């Protein structure tokens, strides 16, 4: 077997054929048309999280058992991080959302690395229970479905808006966004106010874009990871059964470790960005007041 990388060969991308959308498991126009392979995995993730949280919190004792100890470690670590960013007061309110986001995204991301996810499904048959490639896989990680990532970011946005209005009020939010800072008066004050009004408009645009950036960043990373793993698995597909089998194991192996890291990193990035957004909008703006005293 030999793979040719001859310079004269015309470049053709070797990317595997992974759909950019989640496949429906039922008829698209039926009542269950919403039930995609990513919804199925989301339900599995829900069950896993429910099972483990139940196991960890059942018969809790001051001297923790193994599952309780592990879950306590994760929650204590996350709570410490969130508290460090949003402060002790907001942490109590924001942690349930941020903790859920982290756990849900992490489990979803890592679920996509399990053997069979993306490879078991419907495709061109090559024998009994054998297909050439899964065109419509049975399982797809929710974070590789834009519907799910938009859902996560919109949920985060709604909670962000709720916490912000609860903490500073509507007027406080508008003042924080558009209000002039620096305490200048007269002509300079008017000029600065105009500048801050313009900055406020930019700020509003950036706030509106946040759910888009959050969702596309997460989707893009996980979807790209799926593509990389499938491409690596299929790279030696035409080299005979043994070569194909060994290649499908050996070649994607390093990328599995990378995807483990990417999955964790994306969960952290999503959660931390949400924390920072909450911190930015719930911090009381006392600069002008302080400068007035000086």
């Amino acid at each position, binding site marked *: 077997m030999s793979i040719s990388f001859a310079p004269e060969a015309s470049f053709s991308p070797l990317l595997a054929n992974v*759909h*950019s*959308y*989640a496949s429906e498991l039922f008829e698209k126009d039926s009542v269950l*048309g*919403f*039930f*995609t392979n*990513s*919804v199925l995995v*989301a*339900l599995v*993730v*829900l069950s896993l*999280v*429910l099972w483990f*949280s*139940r196991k*960890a*919190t059942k018969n*809790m004792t*001051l001297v*923790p058992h193994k599952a*309780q100890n592990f*879950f*306590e470690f994760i*929650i*204590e670590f996350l*709570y410490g991080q969130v508290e460090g960013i949003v402060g002790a007061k907001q942490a109590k309110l924001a*942690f*349930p*959302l941020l*903790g*859920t986001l982290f*756990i*849900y995204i992490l489990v979803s991301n890592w679920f996509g690395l399990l053997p069979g996810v993306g490879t078991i499904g419907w495709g061109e048959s090559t024998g009994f229970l054998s297909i050439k490639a899964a065109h419509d896989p049975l399982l797809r990680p*929710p974070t590789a*479905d*834009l*519907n*799910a990532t*938009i*859902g*996560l970011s*919109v*949920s985060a946005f709604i909670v962000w808006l709720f916490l912000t209005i609860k903490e500073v009020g509507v007027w406080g939010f508008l003042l924080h966004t558009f209000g002039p800072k620096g305490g200048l008066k007269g002509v300079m004050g008017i000029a600065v106010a105009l500048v801050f009004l313009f900055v406020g408009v930019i700020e509003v645009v950036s706030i509106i874009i946040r759910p888009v950036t959050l969702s596309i960043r997460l*989707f893009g990373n996980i979807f790209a990871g799926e593509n990389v793993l499938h491409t690596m698995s299929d790279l030696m597909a035409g080299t005979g059964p043994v070569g194909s089998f060994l290649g499908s194991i050996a070649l994607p192996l390093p990328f599995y470790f990378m995807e483990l890291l990417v999955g964790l990193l994306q969960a952290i990035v999503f959660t931390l960005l949400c924390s920072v957004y909450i911190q930015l909008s719930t911090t009381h703006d006392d600069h002008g007041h302080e400068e007035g005293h000086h």
Partner: protein
Amino acid sequence: MISATTLIIAAGKVDAIVEKFGLAWGKFIAQVIIFWVVFTILKKYAFGPILAMLEQRRQRIADGEAKLEKISRDATEAAKTSQAIIDKAEADAARLVKEADDAAKALQERRQQDAVASANTIIAKAREAAELEKQQLMSQLKSEFGRMVSDATSRVTGKVLNADDQTRINQETATQVSA
């Protein structure tokens, strides 16, 4: 101004994106519902109890630390108190020992004085007895010597001495013996 053509193109691009990524309200809502179910479950059955347990443990550790500090403080206080008691006991013991020592010395001195007095009395009595005995012996000696002188005189002179002679000889002999 944004022209109608631009809006149509934009709408077409949005449609293309929706089509390419399979965006649909039903799928979106299903994903949101699943996430909120996870959120609700975790908030109620995981985060709440776990955070309460962590707080309870933190409180217990804080209480333990406070108790430890109190115990340490009490131990220091107890050590100080016991040291004060020991110091007082030592002082009392030293005082008692000194008093006992003084009393013993006084008793010893008194006993010594008594002993000396007794010894002096005994010595005086012994002297008196010795003197008396000496006097008795001297008296016996004188009488014996007088008798022997009288006897010798009567033998030498061949004269029977009468009572006056004997008395005179005895007196003279006694005087000479005494001298």
